[in-house]
């Protein structure tokens, strides 16, 4: 299966490991992610202004390119996914807005392309049972805490990926990989998101609670689908002038655990660049 792929800026820079592992596991499962030929930034926030037409232009350009390329476009970055999916929903429902933007961009976006997250693609094909069959190196005994955050799931009315209050999609995936999903109450709490840029103290406080809760529930690793969550949870656990506490928990992308479990070579794991090094967990 060939699917258009929108990597987005972060996966081309700071989150290269997510991109690399994502492409590798997709390929291993028979899904070829075909990068859109000429893509641009989606804007990285979904505008909430009363008149949001200006900010919808960038994501609509992406959707237009995707529409030219095929029926659906896959994203890995939860933020890109969020922005593209909501833009798509908005333009599907609001014809006037679509006409307005098309008038400006001089491109005829038809409002048809289906925006999917790789998680959704895999849930449909090969499905969790199918995935489990391809696992060559089950993550036996690995206590992994699925952390969903906000943007991947909310608002439900526009995203419809999973129940935003009690999601299971990452749990299911982890089970298919042979790991033991750790349920912890903070799994859909906000990590602070962009506030990390302006008020890092606030997001660090929020993140510490999340990590602490995962640890209390016995997690060895936290699993996410969002580069900003990854950073916000990982960075506060960095080594400081006081050294390390010894209670750090690595924070990885679901694709990276998949790469390990599917027996892909270590360079496909993309686990080099983190403040808390996850690799010791996976080296025999």
């Amino acid at each position, binding site marked *: 299966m060939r699917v258009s792929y929108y990597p987005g800026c972060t996966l081309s820079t700071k989150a290269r490991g997510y991109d690399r592992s994502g492409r590798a596991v997709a390929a291993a499962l028979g899904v070829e992610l075909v990068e859109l030929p000429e893509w641009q930034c989606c804007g990285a926030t979904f505008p909430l202004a009363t008149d949001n037409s200006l900010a919808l232009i960038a994501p609509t350009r992406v959707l237009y390119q995707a529409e030219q390329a095929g029926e659906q476009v896959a994203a890995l970055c939860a933020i890109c996914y969020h922005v593209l999916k909501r833009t798509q929903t908005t333009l599907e429902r609001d014809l006037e807005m679509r006409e307005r933007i098309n008038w400006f961009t001089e491109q005829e976006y038809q409002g048809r392309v289906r925006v999917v997250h790789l998680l959704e693609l895999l849930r449909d094909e090969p499905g969790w049972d199918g995935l489990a069959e391809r696992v060559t190196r089950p993550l036996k005994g690995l206590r992994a805490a699925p952390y969903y955050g906000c943007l991947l799931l909310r608002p*439900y*009315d526009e995203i419809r990926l999973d*129940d935003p*209050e*009690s999601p299971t999609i990452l749990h299911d995936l982890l089970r298919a990989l042979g790991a033991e999903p750790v349920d912890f*109450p903070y799994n859909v709490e906000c990590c602070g998101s962009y506030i990390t840029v302006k008020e890092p103290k606030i997001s660090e406080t929020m993140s510490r609670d999340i990590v602490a809760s995962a640890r209390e529930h016995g997690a060895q690793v936290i699993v996410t689908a969002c580069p900003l969550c990854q950073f916000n949870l990982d960075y506060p656990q960095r080594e400081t002038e006081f050294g390390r506490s010894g209670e750090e928990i690595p924070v990885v992308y679901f694709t990276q655990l998949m790469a390990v479990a599917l027996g892909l070579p270590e360079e496909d794991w993309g686990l080099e660049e983190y403040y808390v090094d996850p690799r010791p967990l996976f080296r025999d």
Partner: protein
Amino acid sequence: MSRIGLFVCHCGINIAATVDVERVAEVVGRDSHVVFATDYKYMCSDPGQQLIKDAIVEHGLDGVIVAACSPGMHEKTFRATAAAVGLNPYRCEIANIREQCSWVHQEEPERATEKAIEIVRTMVEKVRRDEDLVPFELPITRRALVIGGGVAGLEAALSIASAGYPVVLVEREGYLGGKMARLSGTYLNFEAAPDLLQQRVGRVLNHPNIRVLLNAQVTGLEGYVGNFKAEVSGSRVQIPGSNLKPEAPKPETLEVGAVVVATGWDPYPLERLPEYGGGRVPDVIDGLAFEEMLRPGGELRRPSDGRVPREVVFVQCAGSRDPERGVSYCSKVCCMYVAKQAMMFKERVPEGQAYVFYIDIRSAGKGYDEYVQRAMEQHDVLYLRGKVSKIFRRGGRVVVWGADTLAGRPVEVEVDLVVLATAMLPSRGAIPLAQTLHIQTDGYGFYNEAHPKLRPVESLTAGIFLAGAGQGPKDIPEAVAQAGGAAAKVLQLFAQEAMVQEPTVAYVVEELCAACGACVAVCPYEAREIHPVRGIATVNAALCQTCGACVVACPNKASRIHNWEPGQVLAMADVLTEMSS
């Protein structure tokens, strides 16, 4: 030449401020069939009606048009007025120039006046051709069916039976009393629900006029007001006052004249509140479960480890007033029962602490607000104004995250037990039952009343009445009051000698009918059939609602409606097209 009288009503300023009523009377008054035309401030008032009566007598009128509000409001009134002085009431018609004219064209008084004239003119054409009609009389089966044996159903059954009429009470479960049978004390005076209920149940079981069918359901209903046939299945006859083994379940058909639907409510499932730990955290329970713990003989212990809870959080509006994830309406009883439960908890565990998260307190009712105040002031129940965002387990305790919007900060409380005051849903199975009974529900499955203000205990189907929480969230006194109202309506029906049925229904011109059955297929009220012996279509006048579907469907113009004859409708259309051409 007809002798029609025209009476144009001002409706205060409702009509007269927009429509030039004098002009309407004057212009239409010139019609050769109209021998008298006038206007008046309030036609429905006593002097207004007197004016009509006097004119009928004085001018020997053979038809009356009242140009006024919707016929839904006052058709009955004015027909009675006409009948009082000997005019056949079906020769009195309403021309609606309020709802269909003045109210909707307030910006354009001139054109509104023109339209009013057109409306009245069409009525002239109709009234000219109206015939004397006589209402039908139908017999009444004076036996009532009550569906649902909760406190509302019990009340309705007792009221009807005590007036001397037989009642069959059909209850789905194996016991009577409904949800009230699971309650502890009741607000406002903590009187024990089981005691209150026992007297009622005892009276019902021993009443010579009441037959109780337990574990039974109504599976079909045919017929019409005064003459229903109900199919009941899976019934076991409970013989009052005896210990005989119940009969084996067997289906039967009951002939009844009226039905009271009192199927009550069911709690919103805990599992649909996962963010509150519903269905996941054992020490998160709903209000009914807590009632059971507070009951005489119940044990106030946490489900997880059997310890007596010291600290309890109550979460109001759990699932209610939440259009996004739950139901949009207020469940109405929870503010009150939470106050009750919190006080009862404090009685049992005086050193304990009760917290209540609320959006706002809805305690409208005599003595209700004072009751909630009592919980706050005399029992130290801590009320926190704000919604709860999340509930989860930490160690052996339950953590509640919420907001205290009065203090303007997020709060976290760690307690032993959480009680969710979950929303009231219509009883499961209410929608299919409504379909069986041909009554309507709202989007949630609460039965719709015929009119939200003036006919709150009737359904839109004649002879089917509503009582209790199945019509909308209600507490016990309200459910009982509504049941009393429904019973009064049943008795009103039974007190009539025969049922009078409007004659303005469909009929079949026998020699034109080819028995094609087109009308049978379109009739939404199952009022038509092809007569097995006579081989033509026939109308069950008691079921016909005068919708007109069959008239349009009939290729032979054999299907007609009294006083809506093809000649009348065409003449009405003609006068309109003439005027606009």
